[in-house]
């Protein structure tokens, strides 16, 4: 079954999109600002004869010529973390500031948690939650290798998350990097779509709505919530935003996408969504030679 064909009506150059989905992804690492600078990483790669290309939109991303970011000194020292280019977008859009309290609702394996901690200069707190106990060890080892001291790791259902025992009332920002059908990761995992079904979309969309609603409720008025998925299905993207915009005190705000992208879609299979969803961004694999991603920025209003 060609799952992705259902998105043909949404995509300008569908042939280029389909061809890009067949190509493997470049191997990319992100510099961990807690332990290093892009300049020192560059120098260490040069000393070791590791070939790389800089990524124009982000000074801390390096595309490596060889696969496998784990076998070199910069990795051993926690100076770099293997992270797909498009996966560095949501924390950039979140734009956390030093000293803030940030909630990463679905944090494992920690790529975005550690990026957030670096952007906050490892001050304040990033509450890194994941409901799957088995995924926490990867989160912990990534955070520890990168020397993160500002993370609080929790293992709870994000939809029922409470701040009662943490001693503060609200987060300044939250990132909902939601569990999803992962259609946009086919370049990394060619079998990502093997278990795809419309029934799964309906199930996971329920989860996404519950988590995003909780994130809006636990973020202070004026605070920022970023919603992201690595999938193309409007059922998991614009439809989730439409639901939460109607149910909670929040609005979608425009933001500058660091990568070439399309606006969110207001109509899908006969269903119409709140016009605000145009402010979300759809990033397709052929536009920037990355994985696929969906990203929206919300402001909490009440």
């Amino acid at each position, binding site marked *: 079954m060609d799952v992705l064909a259902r998105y043909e009506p949404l995509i300008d150059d569908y042939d280029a999109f389909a061809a890009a989905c067949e190509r493997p992804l470049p191997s990319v690492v992100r510099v961990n600002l807690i332990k290093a600078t892009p300049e020192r990483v560059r120098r260490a790669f040069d000393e070791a004869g590791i070939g790389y290309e800089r990524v124009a939109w982000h000074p801390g991303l390096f595309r490596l010529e060889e696969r496998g970011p784990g076998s070199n000194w910069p990795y051993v020292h926690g100076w770099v973390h293997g992270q797909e280019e498009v996966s560095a977008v949501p924390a950039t859009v979140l734009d956390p500031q030093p000293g803030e309290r940030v909630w990463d609702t679905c944090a494992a394996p920690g790529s975005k948690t550690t990026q957030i901690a670096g952007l906050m200069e490892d001050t304040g707190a990033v509450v890194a939650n994941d409901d799957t106990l088995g995924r926490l060890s990867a989160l*912990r080892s990534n955070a520890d290798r990168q020397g993160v001291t500002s993370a609080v790791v929790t293992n709870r259902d994000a939809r029922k998350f409470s701040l009662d025992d943490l001693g503060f009332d609200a987060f300044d920002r939250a990132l909902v990097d939601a569990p999803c059908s992962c259609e946009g990761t086919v370049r990394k995992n060619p079998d990502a779509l093997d278990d795809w079904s419309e029934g799964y979309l309906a199930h996971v969309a329920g989860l996404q709505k519950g988590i995003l609603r909780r994130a809006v409720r636990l973020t202070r008025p004026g605070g920022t919530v970023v919603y992201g998925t690595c999938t193309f299905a409007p059922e998991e993207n614009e439809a989730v935003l439409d639901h939460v915009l109607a149910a909670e005190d929040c609005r979608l705000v425009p933001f500058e996408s660091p990568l070439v992208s399309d606006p969110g879609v207001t109509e899908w299979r006969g269903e119409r969504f709140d016009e605000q969803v145009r402010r979300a961004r759809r990033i397709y694999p052929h536009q920037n030679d990355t994985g696929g991603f969906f990203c929206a920025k919300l402001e909490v209003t009440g």
Partner: protein
Amino acid sequence: MTGNDGSRFDRLPATDAERRVEGRPSREAVVGFWEERFGIPPETWDGHTFWEKGAGKIWAFAGELPDHVAVETLGLPVLRTRQEHWKPTTDGVQRFGTAATRNVVDLTSEQARRFVAGEDQDLPDWDGDWGYLIAAHELAGEREPIGVGLYLYGELRSVVPKGRRREL
């Protein structure tokens, strides 16, 4: 005095005099350990609180939380106490060991490669203390700590945990 509750994070008392839990180290003692053993200035830790979870595992956290908190992890594990010789963690010395001024052994690139692979090696020229040392090498123009070594009888044992070892 009460016992240690291994299921939650408890903040360390500021000094030994304020201790309420048997065997729990104080913040003063932890900061003092790093200063005495490695010359790391006490102000290095000004932005961090210290916590114990489990028996003797000490974590450094960048902020403030209530004194007892039931979460999975809090900050970074930096030290193992409640044993005769306190043992710094690999992650702790990588993060904070750049401020060390003593008991740091500078390895050649070949020695560093063997160390990170988990190999023990003879180190006849070391004339500093025995016990836990910070093993470092030069990378991109500066000294960079790799991890913890145990120096005994002319030999440097690598205590890099299995999951952090690499053949480079």
